[in-house]
């Protein structure tokens, strides 16, 4: 299924990004399968996972058969043995902002998925503890979304009691 030398996965559209890096664009349904195949191919570490809100910037360059959605989950994988990186970008529609969790493939994505959920509101199905990680528990909304205005939110904690 996987071309080890190139880090390509059959049936997944691919693009060459800046710096010659391989960027894969699987469907949400093929997301975990692609990552697991890449892990088999020697990408031992998931260094980074984040989400991007493309609201207001829909015309980005994508492979021909990839339909641009509002959200994107970006996963950066690293192969220590091959000294290479690869990137996986999944299009996540606004109507169903959820993707399967990578927790079973790379346990180290736990905190990063919580962060993406907290700040961008993308749900990760199968995550053991999907709750806010950086923002206060009772916070409303997801601050890194483009429709979440900055400077609009009133100052928090202003009614907190003074020094005890």
């Amino acid at each position, binding site marked *: 299924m996987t071309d080890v030398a190139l880090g390509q996965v059959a049936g997944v559209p691919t693009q060459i990004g800046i710096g010659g890096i391989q960027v894969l664009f699987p469907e949400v349904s093929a997301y975990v399968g692609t990552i697991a195949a890449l892990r088999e191919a020697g990408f031992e570490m998931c*260094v980074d996972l984040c989400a*991007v809100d493309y609201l207001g910037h829909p015309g980005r360059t994508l492979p021909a058969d990839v339909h641009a959605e509002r959200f994107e989950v*970006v996963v950066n994988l690293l192969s220590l043995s091959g000294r290479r*990186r690869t990137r996986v970008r999944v299009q996540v529609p606004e109507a169903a902002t959820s993707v399967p969790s990578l927790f079973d493939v790379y*346990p180290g994505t736990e905190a990063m998925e919580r962060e993406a959920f*907290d700040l961008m509101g993308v749900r990760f199905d199968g995550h*053991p503890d999907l709750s806010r990680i*950086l923002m206060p528990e009772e*916070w409303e909304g997801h601050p890194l979304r483009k*429709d979440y205005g900055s400077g609009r939110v009133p100052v928090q904690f202003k009614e907190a009691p003074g020094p005890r």
Partner: protein
Amino acid sequence: MSEPEDLDTHLVERPEWSATETSEGTQELFKRSETDEAELGRQSGAVLRLPEGPVLDPSQIDFDRPDDETMIVNMGPQHPSTHGVLRLMLELDGEVVLRTKSVIGYLHTGMEKTGEQLTYVQGATNVTRMDYLSPLHAETSFALAVEALLGLDMPPRATWIRMLMGELNRMSSHLMWMATNGMDLGSTTMMIYGFREREMILSFFEKTTGLRMNTNYIRPGGVAADLPDGWEDDVAIICDTVLARTFEYDDLLTGQPLFRARTEGVGGLTAEEALALGVTGPILRSTGVPWDLRRSMPYLAYDEVDFDVVVGTYGDNFDRYSIRLNEIRESIKIVRQIVEKMPSGDYRIQDPKVTPPPRGRIDASMEALIHHFKMFTEGFKVPEGEVYSAIESPRGELGTYIVSDGTSKPFRLHVRAPSFVNLQVLPVLLRGGLLSDAVAVISSVDPVMGEVDR
């Protein structure tokens, strides 16, 4: 802003009693009977549920251990050993730690969101405040990402100045770690020593950049200013002094029986666990994985200098200590080579698109004044695209992911903070250890909370 029913964030069902606030905030670590099995395993430090890896024996997790045998205590966020505002929830059996959950976010100021409001010219001032112990590395990572989007090649002197400042910053960061780690283990002498040496390096930063920390020195397009006159002598004095003093640390700590008893065999980690958790930097190298981005995937001009990658064996506190101590010596080695090889020439790229006109021309030319004004109000436009650039910071892989939509501000700025990811090893390192060692273990992970929370 139309938010659907998305507002409820507690996807994990929270038991009713947990809503009661403790004096430090909500209860975060639940009773065993009320915790999901996967989460229970995670809090117990079971990371390897991969089919081919060694799987944690479920009998070790004690799913049905009675709740009245253990005690859940809160440590932090205000605790001198947590290096900032890290809060840990610990489940204890006597003095033995069984489960750990770290609670972060007390220093969250939305710097990634702020980064979207700042132009690329201003961006370095933002990222430099994330990891306040190694600000120059964050700036380098940001600058390299922007330059990759622009497709610029830096003049050699700019590259070598970045390496020089980066290695000095690595020394100061590790010295700071030696100081606080000594403090956590009860050696106030080490704390004073570490701060003393670090101050020398920070004085050099002040001389070069104008500021001791948060320097905004390395910017897209080069560095802000050339090195000051006589910098070779300053750097030589720093190298000689710090190198001589690392041998004093050997006398003070490395060979000292008490120190070794507190660190050897404490907080062990295997290479498989480290890789599965995405751990990088000295913690990964302490497990025996020779992975250093300066060597493995060279950036700047690290392929032109000679240095050793320091690797440990057991992944315990002592390995992490000796790796950082020896990395100071390796950095001195690199700095001395940089002093010898420093090329002459421009310290920033002579590309009017990203470089403001020199001060002298602003007084003489109206066009230069307009150009300068536009550069610092509107910034420069960066072509559309996305890029991830990673460098080896003192704490591990520091990556910057930038999405550009062709304007002068990043569409999305994400920083892969090494401390944030490295914190996930705490349940593994603390499990089965003593509460009194927890302080030393947290210190050996070297988290910088400004970078964790961003």
